[in-house]
């Protein structure tokens, strides 16, 4: 697969690789994809009291564009509000990375990952409020 410069850059130097404490209530975790399909993305966001994403980490099993899509996503969501992060569209990711058509599903997966992370964060904090 011949990739563009941006994919290669993210692939060679992935940003924000790592793991946040998934039991921390300020952390939302999204894990999407399936090993059988050849890609699994784990995206985590850490949200401060003002509702701003102050940290984001990822780990991805998948092809170069899946790794690049999730790496780019962690850069984009940092500093955004949770609501803004949810607005990120797969087409924006695909466009930024100039993904070939056969790799568009990687950007879809990235969009799913941020949505899953946000909903995990909401779920945790709603529950917390209920019990408090």
């Amino acid at each position: 697969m011949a990739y563009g410069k941006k994919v290669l850059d993210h692939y060679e130097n992935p940003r924000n690789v790592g793991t946040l404490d998934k039991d921390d209530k300020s952390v939302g975790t999204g894990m999407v994809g399936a090993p059988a399909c050849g890609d699994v993305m784990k995206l985590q966001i850490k949200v401060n009291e003002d509702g701003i994403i102050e940290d984001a980490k990822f780990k991805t099993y998948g092809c170069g564009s899946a790794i690049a899509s999730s790496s780019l996503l962690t850069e984009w969501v940092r500093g955004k509000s949770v609501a803004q992060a949810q607005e990120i569209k797969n087409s924006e990711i695909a466009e930024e990375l100039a993904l070939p058509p056969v790799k568009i599903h990687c950007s879809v997966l990235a969009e799913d990952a941020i949505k899953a992370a946000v909903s995990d964060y909401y779920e945790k904090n709603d529950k917390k409020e209920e019990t408090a």
Partner: protein
Amino acid sequence: MKDIKTPIYLDYASTTPIDKRVADKMFEYMTTDGMYGNPASRSHSFGWDADDAVSKSRKHIADLINADPREIVWTSGATESDNLAIKGAAHFYKKKGKHIITLKTEHKAVLDACRQLEREGFEVTYMEPMSSGLLDLDKLESEIREDTVLISIMHVNNEIGVIQDIEKIGELCRSKNIIFHVDAAQSAGKIEIDLQKTKVDLMSFSAHKIYGPKGIGALYVRRKPRVRLEAQIHGGGHERGLRSGTLPTHQIVGMGEAFRIAKEEMNQDFENISKLRNRLWNGVKDMEEVYLNGDFENRYPGIMNISFNYVEGESLIMATKDIAVSSGSACTSASLEPSFVLRAIGRSDELAHSSLRMSIGRFTTEEEIDATINTVKIAVEKLRALSPLWEMYKDGIDISKIEWAAH
């Protein structure tokens, strides 16, 4: 480490470079300085010289497999040979029966030719190999029916390198009076083939897998007992009417020379490649979660197929860009399906996605193998650090127990 040229070529099962001795020989049959005539021209020395070269090459092919030169038909490559053999035999013998047996791990040229025959009203049984990749002979026997006319089983598998027992399959086919076709694109010139001993009726060959040029191949068609085919390409009646089209003298000379050299150097090549294979396997086998795909014993050593669990194949290829290899991963193909060969031998999708095929050849060196081991180790380590599956494995989580949302 000595300075070596990168990328390192470890994709000999895909194609090989032309041996310089072969290229030199081919060049004698192209320009005004050489013998460029049409071998079918009977009226002048240009034609006679070319015809003479074609005859000599035909003999080189026959000699390598212990056959008669009159049993060799030139084609454009193994794909055409497979098509001619399978469709040609099926069409010719269709009154006798319309059932064909083959293996799920055959090359696409065989599988797709069979699919075409199904559309024409033939019935095809696609057998599952055992998890070793080998064919279960008892199961094969039980699949044979009254109307079975053709069995097509490859010699060396192109993805995993396992060697099928074509001698025993040949005995079985002969005893039941069934035509036996073997795709030998990956085995000819690499392991011994003796068609006086082995009861194969049709055998496909390619030049470019054995240091000859691309675009030329051959089909062996047995004379005793005689096997008949219906031609698939019609025209000037070349090759006894079995395959029309002007013979490409320089290509044929290249294939002949490649096969001649292969016969002479087969033992030496085999020994060399075996040593390098062992070096490669010993270099990676002690890493965690590394799996060899296919039987270790019944295997041509030049083809190694290894799965590095929890690492996806395409990203592994990107991380090892100094070595030229291929992957069973979906992402390296247009179809987004993982290797059908690895799936057929019972490997999970994950392991199929995580596989690399590394194939070694005549020009591979020890230094290249050492550099490869090093590169692969670093790449796998890097990608596992990125892999959520590796993290889960390390945390003792069984990923097969998780309900993944398929997408």
